[in-house]
């Protein structure tokens, strides 16, 4: 982290700008800027350099998505589909309430595990691979700030996770809908001749135990948990020497993160809530995010509605952690000797 080139560069740029202000020199116009670029080393076909560019980030994002897609990480989704179909066939023997309950439990649990797994495995290799293949040299030898490179990489993974979560959720909702229709069809066949009010009551019970709109915020939180894990994996990979190291560290973080809340409660009971304890717990919470807090689906499957306040708080926590880890990754990568 010594001698971070980019900091010095920013400092230098700041000095140049402030010197211009001190000398009461006007800011350069676009035309002057363009002609200066031509004369002191700009290229002739590219646009003048901008300190921050969404199109550069987008190029890295889409390239990362292409990389991960062509590495066939979407095979994970096939495993999910097989699991889903397999479990729905197996569960046909239960009562419809049990069947829907188990289907939701298994599917949402699988979405959570698969997105987390995908987040860690897909992200762990991104930076080390680019450094090993020297592609990072060719990218950073272009006018691309290191911050944009990191943001582009993580955005590519988040896009991949969003697509995967959407596909798995769509498959899950489809299977749930098909099973619901099958149960409704069977109920209607059995209840021929029953008064319409009674039929309507039974159908309402079937429908309410199948799809529940609370599933949607639950899935969003699962996605945010995966985003958090991806950003943390990227941060670890900025200083890790091998992919295996990153994956092992993340496996620890994953398990400790799920146990963290229990450990924290125990610690608070034993040591009270003094300033030192709170600082210590904040550091632990930063290193090992409370992943259990992102597990809203258990309550949803059990039929408990998730309040908007809880959803918003958890979603904000996810966005906060993802941002912090991305910034930390950019910070370490800034000073990295390539």
């Amino acid at each position, binding site marked *: 982290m010594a*001698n*971070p*080139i*980019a900091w*010095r*560069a920013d400092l*230098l*740029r700041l000095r140049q700008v402030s010197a211009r202000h001190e000398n009461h020199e006007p800011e350069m116009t676009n035309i002057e800027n363009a002609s200066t*670029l031509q004369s*002191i*080393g*700009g*290229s*002739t*076909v*590219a*646009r*003048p*350099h*901008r*300190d921050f*560019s969404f*199109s*550069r980030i*987008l*190029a*890295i994002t889409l*390239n990362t998505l*292409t*990389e991960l897609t*062509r*590495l066939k990480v979407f095979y994970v989704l096939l495993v999910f589909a097989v699991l889903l179909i397999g479990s729905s066939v197996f569960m046909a023997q239960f009562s419809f309430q049990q069947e829907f309950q188990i289907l939701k439990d298994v599917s949402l649990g699988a979405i959570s595990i698969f997105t987390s797994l995908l987040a860690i495995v897909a992200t762990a290799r991104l930076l080390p691979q680019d450094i090993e*293949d*020297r*592609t990072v*040299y*060719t*990218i*950073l*030898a*272009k*006018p*691309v*700030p290191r911050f944009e490179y990191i943001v582009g990489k993580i955005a590519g993974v988040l896009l991949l996770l969003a697509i995967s979560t959407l596909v798995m959720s769509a498959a899950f909702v489809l299977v749930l809908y098909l099973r619901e229709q099958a149960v409704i069809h069977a109920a209607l066949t059995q209840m021929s001749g029953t008064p319409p009010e009674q039929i309507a009551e039974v159908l309402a019970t079937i429908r309410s135990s199948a799809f529940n709109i609370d599933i949607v915020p639950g899935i969003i939180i699962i996605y945010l948990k995966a985003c958090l894990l991806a950003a943390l994996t990227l941060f670890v990979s900025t200083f890790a020497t091998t992919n295996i190291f990153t994956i092992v560290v993340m496996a620890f973080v994953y398990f400790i993160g799920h146990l963290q809340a229990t450990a924290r409660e125990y610690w608070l009971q034993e040591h009270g809530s003094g300033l030192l304890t709170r600082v210590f717990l904040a550091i632990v919470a930063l290193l090992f995010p409370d992943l259990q807090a992102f597990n809203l689906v258990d309550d949803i499957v059990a039929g408990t509605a998730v309040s908007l306040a809880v959803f918003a708080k958890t979603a904000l926590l996810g966005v906060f952690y993802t941002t912090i880890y991305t910034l930390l990754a950019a910070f370490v990568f800034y000073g990295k*000797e*390539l």
Partner: protein
Amino acid sequence: MTNPAVAVNGLTKIFSAPLHPARGIVAVKELNLRIEPGEVFGLLGPNGSGKSTTLKIILGLVSPTHGHTEIFGRDSRLVESREAVGFLPENPYFYKYLTGEETLRFFGRLCGLHGGRLKERINELLELVGLSKARKRRLGTYSKGMLQRIGLAQALIHEPRLVVLDEPTAGVDPVGSREIRDLILDLKRRGITVLLSSHLLAQAQEICDRVGILADGVLVREGHLQELIAIENQTELVIADASPQLINEVESVINRSKAKLIENRKSTTTLERLFLEATRNDNSKSKEK
């Protein structure tokens, strides 16, 4: 006075050992260089002499311990200094899953190129490096020479004024090597400054205007190639269609003077030229069959 394409002033790089900061490795020591626009400059030296480290510092990939470097007058730690530079690293792999065309599109977008201009530039470069037919093939299927050529194309995508090449012909066969050398000479004709590192001396001798020789991180020689390799008190005459009588007369004139004839031998072609001719003939014969 115009800015030099590359200026290196008092550059020192020490890589510190992780557990023993005192036992650092000096990669480059007090290096001073000035490369003028339009020159082909060769940074020569054995493996581990500090060539790649120097190039990386010039490109802002590694920070110097002391000293500083500039590209066309801009501090090379500034991201915008790289607008003027195209870089081809040693043995580049790029993204194997991208095709040649996609690779150039990706690097073009990083340089702010878009739409029709980018498309046009991709076509021009694929044509220039002779990869138009392989544009839709993934890089995973490219040969070493093809990879090197697509690498050169990506380095040129934004029409840089300086091209930095780290061992551009390492591991490439003589035919591919000749093609890359021709491309470098073409860049020179277009007025593009080329800074290349190499330990293949015969090749550097053919294309470089000036060279610097690094040994253990220290610049031990630097200057115009012809001046550096000239032997001051010796002269070569190359004569075509000379009869034995003429040769005898020349020898007797030399013997009568104070000069001394050191060697009289038949001119030879280079092994490389022989190889290129032989393989070209074989190729055309096999095509005829």
